[in-house]
């Protein structure tokens, strides 16, 4: 299983992704789709679904082309005269897994006039309730800064439970706290009872969170 999500360092913003995509095969289509969404936001439902089959398939700056292209359309949707963040709610509701992934990955890069979080945060919660490792991983990217500590810890624990590499978690070492350590200890004890191990990255995290005494015992 792989839980790769776009977002290499340094992360490209949507303006850079857009410029790169417009210069490639499918660029003309994307430009027309963008204009269509700007003029008629309802058109996004069909166009958003079509993106991956309209663009050249190779990735751009670590983003799958379809995800990057969809991010461009989302930006157009948010800034269209009749668009706005509420449009995202409907789009996500009827999105397939690939479309949901694109929305989650794009969230941290989308234009935000202060209204996006109210719409975006429930989408993260929705993604964290799924058992789709791609969506869970994407929900723990940079936009997870908006997640409260309880939901964030549950998300990290869910990664360990599902075998998602902890490398997908944004600001892990910064946000990991004693409460997360308690939860990881609990999972480690259960795994021990079952004769199974924690993934190595979870063991390393637990060690880093434990005091010097525990670290020596390990």
């Amino acid at each position: 299983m792989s839980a790769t999500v776009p977002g290499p360092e340094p992360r490209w913003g949507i303006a850079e992704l857009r410029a790169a995509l417009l210069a490639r095969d499918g660029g003309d289509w994307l430009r027309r789709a963008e204009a269509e969404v700007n003029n008629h936001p309802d058109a996004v439902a069909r166009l958003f679904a079509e993106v991956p089959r309209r663009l050249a398939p190779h990735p751009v700056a670590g983003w799958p082309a379809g995800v990057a292209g969809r991010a461009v359309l989302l930006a157009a949707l948010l800034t269209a005269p009749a668009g706005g963040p509420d449009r995202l709610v409907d789009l996500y509701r009827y999105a397939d897994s690939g479309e949901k992934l694109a929305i989650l990955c794009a969230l941290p890069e989308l234009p935000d006039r202060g209204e996006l979080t109210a719409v975006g945060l429930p989408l993260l919660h929705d993604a964290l309730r799924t058992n789709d490792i791609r969506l869970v991983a994407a929900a723990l990217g940079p936009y997870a800064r908006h997640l409260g500590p309880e939901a964030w810890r549950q998300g990290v624990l869910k990664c360990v439970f599902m075998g998602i590499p902890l490398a997908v978690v944004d600001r892990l070492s910064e946000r990991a706290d004693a409460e997360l350590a308690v939860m990881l200890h609990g999972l480690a004890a259960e795994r021990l009872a079952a004769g199974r191990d924690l993934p190595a990255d979870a063991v390393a995290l637990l060690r880093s969170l434990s005091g010097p005494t525990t670290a020596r015992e390990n």
Partner: protein
Amino acid sequence: MRIFDPHIHMTSRTTDDYMAMAAAGVRAVVEPAFWVGQPRTNPGSFADYFDSLVGWEPHRASQFGIRHHATIALNPKEANDARCTPVLDLVPRYLAKESVVAVGEIGYDAMTTEEDTAFAAQLAMAVSFALPALVHTPHRDKKRGTERSLAVVVESGIDPGRVVIDHLNELTIDIVLEAGCWAGFSIYPQTKMSPDRMVEILKRYGTERILVNSAADWGRSDPLLTVRTGEAMLAAGFTPDDVDKVLWRNPVDFYQQSGRLNLAHVTEPAASFAGSSIARGGQ
């Protein structure tokens, strides 16, 4: 060996499973309402699901000589979605149905305040419908989730002997038995219990107030792990009567508290099911 699987999601299983289960001695199942993998987005989606649990699925089971009962609830995971919380208004309609033998699965997933609300509200429904309750314990933070679940059970005023706390393991059984609840174990590849670990637990704790289920669903699971557990018990020196107690009489005793368990003519062929006797609780 006659088997009553007290927790299995047959909606997600094939007729091959039903055939294998029947051949191995499974004669009765309880199917709890739960998450179907794909998140639902409106109460109507639940209504159709509940209809299926008291309609189509019992009919399907009957084709294989297996008696099917259900438990109904808004599950903890989807209780977090505001679009689904109106399901709480639908649940009582289904709790009144003839083949519904408990409220469930209720409990915790991520231990949010929304889950608190749904859990407490549905325990209150269990009390008012005089039904047992099936409480799911979380995959994450299980020990504290189990402790918190028991506190909510006590708070509700329901008789703990009418509550099963499910998906337990070596670390969570003690507090559940001490609280007077039934202890449920899901024998499920990888993520939950194995037959051999279950046998060790039975050696240590005995067979009272213990339920063993397969919890087979849409995941990589095995509806015959109840049977495998019975075989492992025999291999470890338990008697056939011990096996019958754990895999048949215990689930019967637990769900019979609903007053709705109907096991009449349970070994007869499916054709007799549709208009069958309404005698209750017979074995």
